[in-house]
């Protein structure tokens, strides 16, 4: 932004001598002088011209730099050196682009033109405003940078923790929980809370930044997976047999017997849906806002122990032992997409925040990156030990666990990677990986407890306070909960293309009718069958009834024939016209075509 002080300085610098003094009334005597000295007058005029030129030059320069309007002259005679609104860089504007410009159709209705221009204007304004307000997101993500010929992956966590400030350093810690087996991990949506689920029944909730234990229980059963629900007040635990829901104090709220043998869970925060994948091959959706099962889909692909969600469109990805990854929505009983990704079984799948890339790892020890919009493979890596767990951070860092080593990769999809960005050895085999939202932290659950790793550049530095506020108070959380429930998206709207809702349904009438018939179970538009009236006194003889029926049928047929003949005639006519046109057109063209070689 231009400060007024700067402006004045510039102005004075340009026209110091030549500036005529401000006058509010005629200066008689000066004019007289000028009359006397013609030469001087000329000089004056020249000076004035020069000054004018300079000024115009300056203004044009400004204009080129981005001011849309001319510099407004103030009373003092000074010009605004930075006229118009402040310039926004093009790339930043493009960042907030929502749609392409629509062309205003020629010779169409004025209302249409108005509407289009209005929407165009509104969207442009929104875009510009958003770009302008981008300034208010000051936080920037930075990455670890090693010295010359020093690999960042060789830097140990302890070194990083020592180098950073105390608060950040305290985010590197280990929890030694060797008793209850390998741990699954989940961070809440705000990244403030952590739930740990030990294979041998140990479940603990921690406010991990303050290291405050919220609850700790042992469910006395094997635990397959843990997942936070929409807020930190509730979490779901997939136990040996059924699915349980506990509150943050460790009190069992629900035991959902409809969901049995659950191995993996995903929570869709905007739909309030808990998707579970079971050992029996069922993919089930539970609406946690009303507590009802939305759908249960039998995938017919055996044990489902690889699962992830696409945060962009709430599609569930399942990995199978035959190397395929399938995509599911609650609205369809069959897989939306089935991709053959690996030659062995799929071990882990993860999708990035924008829903563009999918990373899979399989028994063939490969790590593959797919463009999930086009379903095309982008990159293929070979990991000597194979990756058992994968997780993508908000900023697109990929963490892969190979045995007891956690590796973090940068830019797996854009440039070929040969070395990990970071690596860390945990005491025993990794069982669960999860990047903490809005923090540069990677939570690793392993056989010996839990490790919170520092991964610079992992988390999104700018959080949306209305969506997921890590610093929210209890009151704020309550308010957010109400709002989120009001804005809950219905499960019917889950589809591969989330913008499909904004498109006009182009299904033909016939198609729609078919759907309707299917939904209703009968055809509402069907012509009812003619049933001849029963007539008394022997007039309703079988032959008579038949005759009457025939009559009606004959009439109907006549109508049908008439219609078809009419349509045929019409078509014929149109066709002829078209032909005529075509012949005219072709005759026009053919003259020179003959001589073309």
């Amino acid at each position, binding site marked *: 932004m231009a400060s007024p002080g700067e402006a004045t300085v510039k102005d004075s610098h340009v026209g110091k001598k030549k500036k005529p003094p401000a006058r*509010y*009334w*005629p200066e008689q005597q000066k004019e007289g002088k000028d009359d006397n000295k013609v030469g001087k007058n000329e000089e004056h005029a020249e000076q004035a011209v020069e000054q004018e030129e300079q000024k115009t030059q300056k203004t044009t320069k400004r204009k080129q730099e981005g001011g849309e309007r001319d510099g407004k002259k103030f*009373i003092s*005679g000074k010009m605004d050196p930075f006229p118009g609104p402040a310039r926004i860089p093009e790339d930043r504007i493009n960042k907030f682009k*929502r749609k392409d410009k*629509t062309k205003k*159709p020629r010779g169409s209705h*004025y*209302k*249409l033109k108005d*509407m289009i221009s209005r*929407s165009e204007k*509104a969207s442009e*304004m*929104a875009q510009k*405003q*958003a770009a302008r307000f981008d300034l208010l997101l000051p936080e920037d993500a930075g990455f670890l940078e090693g010295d010359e010929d020093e690999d960042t*992956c060789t830097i140990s966590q302890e070194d990083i923790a020592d180098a950073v400030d105390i608060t950040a350093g305290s985010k590197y810690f280990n929890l030694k929980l060797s008793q209850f087996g390998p741990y699954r991990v989940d961070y809440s949506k705000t990244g403030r809370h952590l739930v740990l689920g030990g294979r041998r029944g140990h479940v603990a909730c921690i406010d991990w930044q303050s290291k405050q234990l919220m609850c700790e229980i042992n469910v006395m059963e094997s635990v397959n997976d843990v997942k936070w629900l929409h807020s930190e007040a509730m979490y779901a635990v997939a136990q040996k047999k059924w699915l349980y829901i506990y509150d943050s104090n460790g009190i069992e709220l629900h035991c959902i017997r409809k969901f049995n043998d659950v191995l993996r869970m995903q929570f869709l925060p905007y739909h309030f849906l808990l998707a579970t994948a079971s050992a029996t091959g069922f993919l089930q959706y539970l609406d946690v806002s009303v507590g009802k099962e939305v759908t249960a889909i039998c995938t017919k692909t055996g044990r489902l122990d690889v699962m992830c969600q696409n945060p962009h469109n709430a599609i569930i990805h399942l990995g199978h032992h*035959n*190397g*395929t990854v399938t995509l599911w929505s609650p*609205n*369809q009983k069959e*897989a939306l*997409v089935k991709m*053959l990704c690996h*030659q*062995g079984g799929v071990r882990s799948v993860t999708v990035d925040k924008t829903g563009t890339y999918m990373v899979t790892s399989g*028994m*063939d020890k490969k790590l593959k990156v797919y463009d999930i919009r086009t379903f*095309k493979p*982008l*990159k293929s*890596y*070979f990991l*000597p*030990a194979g990756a*058992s767990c994968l997780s993508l951070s908000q900023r697109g860092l990929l963490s892969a666990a*190979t*045995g007891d*080593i956690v*590796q973090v990769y940068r830019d797996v999809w854009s440039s070929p990677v040969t070395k*990990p960005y970071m*690596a860390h050895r945990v005491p025993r*085999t990794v069982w669960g990986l999860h990047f903490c939202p809005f923090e540069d932290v990677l939570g690793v659950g392993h*056989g010996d407890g839990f490790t919170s790793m520092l991964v610079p550049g992992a988390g999104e530095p700018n959080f949306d306070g209305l969506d997921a506020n890590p610093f929210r108070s209890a009151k704020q959380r309550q308010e957010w909960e109400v709002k989120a429930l009001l804005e809950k998206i219905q499960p*019917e*709207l889950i589809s591969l293309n989330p913008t*499909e809702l*904004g*498109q*006009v*349904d*182009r299904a033909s009438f016939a198609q729609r009718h078919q*759907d309707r018939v299917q939904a209703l179970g009968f055809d509402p538009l069907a012509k009812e069958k003619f049933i001849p009236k029963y007539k008394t006194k022997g007039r309703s003889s079988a032959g008579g009834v038949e005759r009457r029926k025939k009559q009606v049928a004959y009439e109907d047929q006549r109508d049908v024939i008439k219609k078809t003949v009419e349509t045929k005639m019409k078509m014929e006519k149109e066709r002829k016209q078209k032909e005529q046109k075509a012949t005219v057109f072709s005759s026009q063209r053919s003259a*020179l075509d*003959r*001589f073309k*070689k």
Partner: protein
Amino acid sequence: MARATKKKGGKKSDKKRSELTEEKVEVMYDDEDLNEDDENITSEEEEEEDERKHHKLLEAISSLGAKRKKTLGERSEAAVQMSEFTVTAEGERDRVDLSDLIGSMEKTPGVTSRTKKQLKNLQKDNKTIESPLSRQETDRIQRDVAFQKAATEVTKWKGVIKQNQRAEQLIFPLNREPSGPKPIERVVTSWKAHTPLEEEIFSLLHANKQPIHDPILTPAEEASMKAMSLEEAKIRRAELQKARALQSYYEAKARRARKIKSKAYHKVHNKAKRKEFLKQFDEMVKTDPAGALEELNKIEMARMQERMSLKHQNSGKWAKSKVIMGKYDLVARKAMQQQLEVNKDLTQKIVTSLNAEEEEEEEEGGDAEVLPDFVNDAEQAVDPSNPWMRGKLSEDPTEKDMIVDLTAEEAPRAAEEEEEEEEEVKEPEEEVLLREFDERRKQRQAQEAEAQITVEEEDDDEEEEEEDKAADEEEAELSAFTSLFREKAEAAADVTDTSAQLEEGLTRIRTLEDVELLSVPQEEAAADEAPLPPPPAENPPPEPQKREAAKPKKRKRAIELKEVLTKEPKVIQVPLAPTVEDAEDADEQLDQRGLIKEAFAGDDVVADFLKDKRKQEDAGKPKVVDLTLPGWGEWGGTGLKPSRSKRRRFRTKAVPPPPRKDQRLPSVIISENKNSAVRLHQVNSLPFPFQNHSQFESTIRSPLGRTWNTERTVKKNIKPKVVTQMGAIIEPMAREELLKDKRPAAGRGGRGGQGGRGGRGVDSQRRHIRDKRAEK
């Protein structure tokens, strides 16, 4: 009589009466009347009392008739001179003619000559004034006029109303001052002098044309600055003069050149021009390809015209004469030759770098080959100990398809129809096969030539005969064949870690084409040479190579993603090696056996997947409906099939479905089922003003809510259409409003104005016509 005439006149009153004769007749009648009257009066004079009584009696009698006669204005005293009033009064139903009046006018001396003239003109102009219209008609006309007036008055408001209707937001009351702080400039500039002193000063300033607000230059100063200096003007004038002179000079030159009739001159001139142009064009190709292309098009056009016309074809009159002369005259022959040369010159295609490039590109352009990524995986380099994987990996997608075909199509093969359809599909494949086979044959022949074995007569068809031939010949051919395989195999990789068991497993992978093409030599090989490694094991490797050799350009053109895939997977080095856990999880323990197991799994996986995909594709295809009834129109019974023609007649082919979304993605199955759940929430018909889907979709694309927009945008987006102020009276719009709005509206001008004018034009015409009628 008079009454009759009067009636006549009355009847004709609505017409235009211009016949003079009738009027004259009338006049005559009038005179007669007068005479009668005169007679009556004279009799009155003579026999006074009795006569009067008699007259009264007469009157009474006459009054008994249908109409009462109006009594004459009668004078009691006797008068010699008759007043003219009596006359008129007498003929109450007669009219006074202008001539009568004018006649009296002649006598009266006081009348001015001017009036006389006027009157005479009046007399000459024998038009009569029409009788007034009926009340209804006049009323109607008046109503019309009144409506016109009102309409014009109302149409003045049209612009304002339209503007308000289309306005995004209306704020009532309409003429409200915008609240909030004003910018300082406006406050200052709108400042007005209040005190007398201030007023005086400002009046002085105004009088002297001094700037009041912006004290930079007075208008006079500005005007002086705008003026040009003398020198500048002079320079400019000189420039203009020069330019004009040059122009006239060139024009004159051109005129002169145009008039030159010498053919030789023109010939030379044209030739030079052409050369020059070509030179320029060559330069242009380098510097400005777009322009060059345009020029090229022009040349092409000229060429086309030349080819079209008979101009230099030696077919004209002149040419014919020359042909006759040509026998004897060398000059004539030369001229003809020249003519032909010109034609050749003109019709010659100009080859430039532009053209060449295009052709090359055309050559290069081809369809991308679809290959699944497994083909390009570099498992080989990584893990040479696993032959299964390699065998599978190096397969082509087409080959895989074929395998599936073999297995899946056993059952439907019985049905002839499908087979027929299949044939159509297979045709291009066969072509491909033929081509490949050709290539192979060529290669083989080349090798044979190298080996210096002269079996040139041999052909594929004659192979059976060859069996009978000497064993050495067979040996030679086979050796050539196998050596080729060996070469290829060696080139591919040293993959020869094979055991007999593994080879058996691999025979299944053999491609169909290979089976078909090489069945004969293979059999021979298997029969004759046991020690030779069976060809199928090594067949796959040369396959892709040949493909690549055949279509290297196509590869280049493939999608970039594919190109990325063709690279080997990056092997990532990890600084820390994972420690092997003891029995913690069995997954991590992967020894060689496990690897092989995995590979086996992969083997199945691909085939299964392809089978699955094929099944889905088939399910999506519409079925061919066969309505053939056996026995109709021909013999029926067991073992009899309806004839082919009949079946063809009754078979209805369904329309092929639109291409699948996963058509180009070999390793993906995309479900074709439509999501009907979303459809319920979608807009299913285009709203009113929109003409196509994209328009509507683009207008609703940008979100309105607070979550995605800044506060100001949201406020603007949800602006109410009408805003009223609490407690404020909304007055109807005053006329001032109209005047205020008129100025900007006029400024806007443009189309709306024109349209309005057109309408107004018609209106004004109509109004004009009405006015004319009203005048009548």
